[in-house]
C-alpha cells in the first residue's frame, strides 16, 4: 500500500517535471526513476526508520557499550576503558548461573508442554465436535488476561491452606504443598500457570494448521490401514511443522517475558526464591542495586538468547522463500 502510494506520487512529480521540460519524455524518464521514487517515498519510510533505528537498535548498541563499562551507582558511565569484565563477573556469579538455568528450564519446559497441550486440544477440537467455537474461545481466553490478573489468580489457586490446587490434591490424599514458598516447586508451579494461560494460543495455531491439511490426507491414511493414533503420528503431525515452528517462537518469546508474571507474584523485583530468571535479575541489578553495567551485560546476554530462539524461525522462513 505504502509502496504503491509512493510510486503514484513519484509518477505525479515526474509528470509535472516532464511538462515543464517541454516534453522531453525519453530523456528524463529513465534517469529520474530511481531518485524520484527514493525522494518521493522519503516522508513515508524515513520517520519510522529513524525512530526504530535510534530507539531500538541504537539503544541496543548503547546498552552493549554500557555493558563494557564498569558503571555502577549514580553518575555518568565512563566509556574510556571498555572490557568484558561484567560478562566474566556474571559467569562467576551463582545468582546469574541460577537465573540462567531457571530461564532455560522455563523456556524449554513451558514451550514444549504448551505445544503438546495445544496440539492435543487442537486435535480434540478438530473432531467436528458441537460448540466448537465456544470451546476455542474458552481455551484462548486466558491469553487475553493481563499477567497481573493471572498472577494474582494463581496466587490464590496455589495458596497453601485454602488454594483450590491443594484442596483438589487433598481429596486424593496429597499435600498440602507450599507451591510458591518451596524453591524446588515454584518454577514448576509458574510453568503450569503459564501453560494454562498460553496453551490456547498453541491450540489456535495448530487448529489452523490442521484445517489446512486436506481431508484426503486423513482418509488416505485411514484407508491405508493406520489407526487414529498412528495416522496423527505419521501423517498429520509431520505436516504441522510450520505451525510448530511459528507457535514455538512466539511461546519462547513469551517465556522470556515471564518477568511480568513473576513481578506480579510478589509485587517486587525479588521473585519467589527458586524462580529468579535473567529478566528479573537484570531489572533488580539495574534499578535496585544500581549496577548499571552489570545489568546491561545481563540484558545483552538475554538479547543474544532471544536471537538464538528466533534465528531458526527466520532461517525456516528464509528457506520457505517468505522473507
Amino acid at each position, binding site marked *: 500500500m505504502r509502496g504503491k502510494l509512493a510510486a503514484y506520487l513519484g509518477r505525479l512529480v515526474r509528470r509535472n517535471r516532464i511538462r515543464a521540460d517541454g516534453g522531453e519524455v525519453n530523456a528524463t524518464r529513465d534517469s529520474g526513476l530511481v531518485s524520484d521514487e527514493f525522494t518521493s517515498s522519503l516522508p513515508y519510510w524515513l520517520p519510522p526508520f529513524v525512530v526504530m533505528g535510534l530507539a531500538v537498535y541504537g539503544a541496543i548498541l548503547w546498552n552493549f557499550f554500557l555493558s563494557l563499562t564498569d558503571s555502577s551507582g549514580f553518575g555518568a558511565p565512563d566509556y574510556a576503558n571498555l572490557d568484558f569484565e561484567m560478562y566474566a563477573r556474571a559467569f562467576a556469579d551463582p545468582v546469574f548461573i541460577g537465573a540462567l538455568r531457571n530461564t532455560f528450564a522455563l523456556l524449554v519446559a513451558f514451550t514444549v508442554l504448551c505445544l503438546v497441550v495445544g496440539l492435543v486440544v487442537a486435535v480434540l477440537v478438530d473432531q467436528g465436535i458441537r460448540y466448537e467455537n465456544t470451546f476455542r474461545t474458552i481455551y484462548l481466553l486466558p491469553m487475553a488476561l493481563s499477567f497481573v490478573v493471572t498472577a494474582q489468580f494463581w496466587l490464590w489457586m496455589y495458596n497453601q491452606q485454602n488454594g483450590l490446587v491443594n484442596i483438589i490434591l487433598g481429596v486424593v490424599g496429597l499435600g498440602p504443598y507450599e507451591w510458591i514458598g518451596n524453591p524446588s516447586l515454584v518454577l514448576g508451579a509458574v510453568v503450569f500457570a503459564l501453560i494454562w494461560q498460553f496453551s490456547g494460543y498453541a491450540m489456535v495455531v495448530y487448529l489452523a494448521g490442521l484445517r489446512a491439511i*486436506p481431508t*484426503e*490426507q486423513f*482418509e*488416505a*491414511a*485411514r*484407508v*491405508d*490401514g*493406520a*489407526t487414529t493414533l*498412528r495416522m496423527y503420528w*505419521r*501423517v498429520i503431525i*509431520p*505436516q504441522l*511443522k510450520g505451525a510448530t515452528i511459528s507457535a514455538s517462537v512466539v511461546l519462547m518469546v513469551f517465556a522470556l517475558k515471564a518477568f511480568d508474571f513473576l513481578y506480579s507474584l510478589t509485587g517486587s523485583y525479588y521473585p519467589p526464591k527458586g524462580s529468579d530468571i535473567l529478566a528479573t535479575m537484570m531489572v533488580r541489578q539495574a534499578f535496585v542495586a544500581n549496577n548499571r553495567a552489570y545489568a546491561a551485560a545481563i540484558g545483552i546476554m538475554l538479547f543474544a538468547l532471544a536471537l538464538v530462539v528466533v534465528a531458526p524461525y527466520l532461517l525456516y522462513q528464509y528457506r520457505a522463500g517468505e522473507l
Partner: protein
Amino acid sequence: MARLELDDITKHFDDDGETIVAVDDASIDIDDGEFLVLVGPSGCGKSTTLRMIAGLETITEGELRIGGRRVNEAKPRDRDIAMVFQSYALYPHMTVRENMSFGLEESTDLSEAEITERVESATDTMGISDLLDRKPSELSGGQQQRVALGRAIVREPEVFLMDEPLSNLDAKLRAQMRTELQRLQEDLDTTTVYVTHDQTEAMTMGDRIAILNDGILQQVATPLEAYHAPANQFVAGFIGEPSMNFFDVDLEGDSVVGDGLDYPVSDDVRAKLDTDALVLGIRPQDIELVDAVESGHDVAVTVDVVEPMGDENNVYLTFSDTAGNETFIANVDGRTLVDEGDDIVARIPEEAVHFFDRRSGEALRNREFDGDADVDLSL
C-alpha cells in the same frame, strides 16, 4: 480378490434437521475381477457410494458385502481395500518409497525386506523406479498419479476404489493413462470400482457401467448395452458424445407428431408404445444428410452451425418449416461439405430411433441391437 455386493444401499445426510438422500436404494453386484465404472453428473451420489464402500461414510440402510462378508460396520483398515483419490492424497512429507510402504507397514506384518521388495516390484510395474527417493512436490502430475496408483497396487487388496483418478491430468496424458489403467486392471484381475463423471472413461474402461442420477441407480449394463439399449431417457442422454437428440412427440395414428416433425412409425414400433406422450430420441451419428426428401423419415432442415472436427463434423440443424430455432445435432463424416444456411434433408432411419415415455422417461423402444449376437470377425 473378491465379489463386492451392494444390497439396497441408502445414504441419508442430515442437513440442519433436513434429510438429504444422497444414495437411494442402490443394488449392484460386482463380480470378482470385474471393472465397474460408476458414472453420473456431479452430485449424483457416485462419490458417496464409493466412500461408503471404502468405509469413509457410514451406510444408512442396506448391506455391503466384500467376499460374502458384511462390512457395514468395519473400519476402512479392516475392509482390505485400496483407494486412489482424485487429488492423489500423497503424503507430502514422505518420499515415494515411504508413501508406498506406509500402507504395508500399517496394515500388514510384512518384514522390512518384504515391504521393500513389494514396493520395488510395484514401482517397476508403474515405471517409476527412478522416483523412489523423491518427494511428491518434486513430481509432475502424471508421476504423482502413478505413485498414487502404485500406492494402491502395492497393497494387493481385494478391491480397488478409484475416485476420478484421471481428472487432474491433461487430455493427452489422460487418454494414455486410461489405456494403462485398463491393462493394469486386467493383469492384476482385482475387483475395481471406478468413479468418473466422464462418459468416455465410462464407455472405454468398464466391464460394466452403473449410471447414477440424483442418488438413484438408473442402469447397470455393459457399455454397449447402455449405449444402444438405454433403460431410460437420462441414460440415453448421458452416454454418448454428442448427446442423443430428443424431440417431444405425440402418437397420432400412424405417425408421431412434434414441433416440425411428422414421423411415420411402423406397426412393430407402434406396438411397443403404450402411451401417447413420447420422446423420440436419435443419436447424432445415426442421422444421415441427404439432398432430397424421399420418404416420410426424411425431414427438410437448415444448417445452423458446423463444427468441423477433422474426421467428422458436428452439424447443428433446425427444422426448416417451424418458427422455433431449437437445434439438433447430426454427426457426419468429416468430408461431407455443408455450410451454414444450407437447406438440406436429414434422414432419421427408423431402426435407429428410440422412444421414451415422456412422463417416466422409461425407454419404450430402443434401436435394434442384439448385445449377444455373435459378431463375425472373419474377413
